[in-house]
């Protein structure tokens, strides 16, 4: 966690929220994709966002990461308001993400994908790059070592020099996580990391998520599959049609009447 700006002293003292979604609304024309949603993600937890198709989960992630800034409301990260920040600024603040429909740099090797993730933590200036200064050389070395470490961490070191597009599907998802971790985040947003996985793969992935949290990274994940989510997170927020319809522990959420309706509603 090198040069991330430390949270201002005093902010968040006591409640331990790393991310605060504060009355966030996002409209696309007439469609309200996220409707006045408020909740906190606490430092060090695995927090889950669930909801049926089109509930606005990805839209909320896009709002947090600055891809589509919210129409109204505020997003506060580590006590600092980041509403309207550019995506690269958000990454520099310490929020990394993966995408629901994998967005790797397909024609770059796995290694380069992860090295790129460290871009915003590197210091080489144009001058250093042009003349390959010793400092630049050392930095490249360090970045390469770290990338190898991360590839190993997510368990795809055998694909180090393979183009991302040629990786098996599951490994592509893992590579995306490695690339996100390379930005050295305090908060990791995972958008349906287990989509398309077999039950066995899902279990492995949950293991990886726990490993990530053990490294001191807070994880905030979206998952369709209620069963998967229940097994991994302590706290869940449920979105439906852009609205927050429930928040609480897996047990509370499971018994919530509106949640049951929302899920039954989408099945028929």
């Amino acid at each position, binding site marked *: 966690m090198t040069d991330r700006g430390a949270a201002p002293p005093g902010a968040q003292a006591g409640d331990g929220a790393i991310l605060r979604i504060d009355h966030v609304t996002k409209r696309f024309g007439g469609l309200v994709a996220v409707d006045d949603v408020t909740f906190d993600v606490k430092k060090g937890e695995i927090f889950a966002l669930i909801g049926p198709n089109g509930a606005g989960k990805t839209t909320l992630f896009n709002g947090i990461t600055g891809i589509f800034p919210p129409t109204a409301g505020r997003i506060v990260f580590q006590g600092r308001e980041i509403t309207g920040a550019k995506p690269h600024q958000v990454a520099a603040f310490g929020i990394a993400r993966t995408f629901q429909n994998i*967005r790797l740099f397909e*024609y770059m090797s796995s290694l380069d994908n992860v090295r790129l993730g460290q871009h915003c933590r590197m210091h080489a200036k144009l001058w250093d790059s042009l003349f390959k200064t010793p400092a630049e050389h050392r930095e490249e070395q360090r970045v390469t070592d770290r990338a190898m470490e991360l590839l190993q961490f997510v368990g795809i070191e055998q694909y180090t020099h393979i183009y991302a597009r040629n990786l098996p599907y599951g490994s592509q998802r893992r590579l995306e996580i490695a690339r996100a971790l390379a930005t050295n985040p305090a908060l990791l947003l995972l958008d349906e990391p287990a989509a398309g996985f077999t039950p066995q793969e899902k279990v492995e992935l949950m293991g990886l998520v726990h490993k990530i949290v053990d490294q001191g990274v807070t994880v905030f994940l979206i998952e369709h599959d209620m069963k998967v989510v229940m097994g991994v997170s302590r706290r869940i927020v449920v979105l439906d049609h852009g609205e927050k319809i429930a928040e609480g522990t897996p047990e509370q959420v499971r018994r919530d009447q509106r949640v049951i309706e929302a899920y039954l509603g989408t099945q028929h």
Partner: protein
Amino acid sequence: MKRLLSRLGSILERDPRKDPNAVVFLLLTFGVIAFPIAIQIVTRGSGSFLISQAADAGVYVLLAIGLNVVVGFAGLLDLGYAAFFAIGAYTYAFIASDHMEFTPIHQAIHIPFWIALLVGMFAAAGAGAILGAPTLRLRGDYLAIVTLGFGEIVPRLFRNASTWTSGVNGISALDTPALPIWLNGPWSGDAFAIVQNFKIIDPLAYYVIMAILVAISVVLVNNLRRSRMGRAWMAVREDEVAAAAMGVNTVGVKLLAFSIGAAFSGFAGTFYGAKLSLVSPENFGFTVSITILIMVVLGGMGNIPGVIVGALLIYYVIFNILPGLPQQASDFANSIGATSLNSPSGDWPGLAGEVQRLKYLIFGLILVLTMLLRPQGLLPSRQRAEELQKGVHEDTTIEDVNAEAT
């Protein structure tokens, strides 16, 4: 030889036996050294014109290397690249000739060539930054249009603002570049001698300087490609949203690529103006921009040796083969007795004239056919080769990745 090969290989951090680029680099280096010697032997010492032309080709090589940073590395289409070339050349004309005496300034400026090179470079890079800063935020292909518009505006500005630029006449008698020290010898037809403040007139001197400048550029650009910046360009080219989410300031890195490209163009323009000792607004039109683009595309976008080969090849075709072709065609017609072909009648301009008219068609066909038949260019970079053959990520659905995996 073998040691040289491995040295070059280690510069590229790759095994030269497996890497065609190292071989191309080696051949190019060898060719650059052998060329003037071979020419002088073949033409029995009267090869100055060809050597001079080779130095001019070097200008285009520089331009192509620079445009490659923009188009090949960062994936931005710059259709007004000649504008920066013009800015570099005119900057030299302003600050290294008597011309300023005849403008409202009434004071000639004579900046030494080597400093002027930097000034021209920074002037062009500055123009690039000013143009790029607002435009690079927009959709990718808007840049193509903005640069195209800019490329049309700049030569017209130089032509219309005649109080400052003497308009269509251009500016002539620019200062001859000088070197602090130069070694005379048999190659210049003199005895061995060390000369100070040597005025560069001899084509061979231009050739040598050009070769050195190109070599330096290749090393620097290659360093860039393998750096943090190079990776960021590649990422932005592939997926801007993902790159931004990973902390890459996409506008910033695109602007950098665009400005570096402009800097190269300005640098080359300064050199070009100095060597020609003349600048005129007619030398920087759209066809120049397109010529350089063709060099990059045909050579292999993103691959430095490819782009150099493309530049040399296209230069040779445009400035050597095409100009001689009409004469050859009409000679050929005469030799087979079809002299009537050579006499103009009605819409028929005569064979020579008709062949002369082929230039546009050849330009166009090179571009279209390259993109259709060999979109990766003659010597592609590894990424580009796969990317252009298999299409971009849009057609990779989760399904076919799954299929690949099983």
